[in-house]
């Protein structure tokens, strides 16, 4: 500590000889510079007090000053608060990796949550749509088929719905399991986009290159917004293996579409 600083500290603690103190009083009221220096020195004094760096004499003098001045008490309290805040801040900044990770997560979490919500919504909607379609199909087949077949016949029919919403490559064709007791396989081939015209369709079911089922007048069925072709195939005419359905509107045979499936008996 240089002499000036020591003199300022003595002034603050009230132990500067009166003649020197009076001189400083006069300087204080004629210059703002000394006021700043005193405030600066008071900050150091408070810091030394808080860190217990004062000598016992200085410590006692400072405590007596505090007892007389609520403002000085407040300054000491405020310095302690300042140190606590500074400590917390440096704690959070001491591990920048964690901070960056937290920032990254805070940005990523809402995006992930949104994505999860969207996926759940689409999945639920698709499940619900399929459930409604199946129940409608069942109701429809019961209503229309009652005159032609008995309950036993209905039980021996296998219905397979080939959805157009599930994109599949040739290696991941859907598998249809047909029990040995089944006599009829009803293949429902969903069309998408739903055709606007009520035309018949040419349909062939191919096993390798062999046509095992063919019809030039397959009608279009509609249930709600869904449109599909229904192929009734005798299970005795087919065996385990991969099949391709080729279908095109009767009026425009050039626009053929294909759908494959794997059958297991």
């Amino acid at each position, binding site marked *: 500590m240089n002499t000036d600083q020591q003199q300022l500290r003595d*002034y603050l603690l009230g132990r500067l000889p009166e003649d020197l103190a009076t001189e400083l009083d006069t300087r204080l009221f004629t210059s703002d510079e000394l006021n700043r220096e005193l405030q600066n020195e008071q900050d150091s004094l408070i810091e030394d007090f808080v860190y217990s760096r004062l000598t016992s004499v200085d410590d006692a003098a400072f405590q007596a000053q505090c007892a*007389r001045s609520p403002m000085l008490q407040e300054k000491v309290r405020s310095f302690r608060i300042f140190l606590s805040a500074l400590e*917390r801040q440096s704690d959070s900044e001491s591990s920048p990796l964690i901070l960056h990770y937290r920032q990254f997560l805070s940005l990523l979490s809402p995006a992930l949550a949104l994505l999860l919500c969207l996926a759940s919504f689409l999945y639920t909607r698709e499940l619900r749509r399929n459930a409604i379609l199946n129940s409608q199909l069942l109701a429809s087949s019961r209503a229309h088929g009652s005159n032609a077949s008995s309950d036993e016949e209905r039980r021996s029919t296998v219905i397979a719905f080939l959805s157009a919403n599930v994109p599949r490559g040739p290696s991941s064709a859907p598998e249809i399991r047909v029990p040995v007791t089944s006599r009829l396989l009803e293949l429902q081939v969903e069309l998408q986009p739903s055709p606007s015209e009520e035309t018949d369709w040419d349909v062939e079911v191919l096993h390798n290159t062999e046509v095992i089922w063919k019809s030039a007048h397959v009608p279009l069925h509609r249930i709600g917004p869904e449109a599909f072709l229904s192929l009734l195939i005798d299970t005795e005419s087919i065996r385990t293996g991969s099949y391709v359905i080729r279908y095109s509107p009767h009026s425009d045979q050039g626009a053929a579409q294909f759908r494959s499936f794997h059958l297991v008996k």
Partner: protein
Amino acid sequence: MTKGQSIPEVDAKVSRQRRITRESFASLLAGLGDTPLEGSHYEQLRAKLIFFFSRRLLAFPEDLADEVLDRLAYRISQHTEIASAEAFALGIARHVAQEQSGRKDQAQNVDPSFFDNVSAPTVTPSKEEEIVRMEQCLKKLPSSEARLLRGYYCATGNNQIKARKSLAEKLGLSPIALRQRVFLARQRLRKCMTTAQDKNRK
């Protein structure tokens, strides 16, 4: 009046309450060259007066400073010819200090328990709230100043001396200039805290 105040100090407060008016306060600010919204010269003069009374080891230097300011305001509002408001304030302060020394003996005869039933005002925010507010103010500082404060205060013991020395070297400053920079950063922080407290009160 707060617990532990002496009779002369209470007298001083009463006399202040009797004398200060909105008009005289406005005259004081104008005399010091302040605008009513700013008041920085007023605050500076008050700080000087507090140092003046503190070094004389007088109790409640803040109240005595206010007493001087009230008397000064009164004089200015009465159109007393004053060449320098600060020099005039020093004269009043010397006078008030003398009054206090003269009344010390009388005050010592008062039973201190006389004031025991008067509770001190305790409308202060919790420590946690203040730390949070201080953290917010630290974040508002320019990053270079926040770094400076952390570098200056966050080392302890002997490490602190070394850390401050190396900080000064790194910034190309003398130790005194470094202290000055830290002081200015803390002044900015104090201003921010005062503004935040004022907002909170509203």
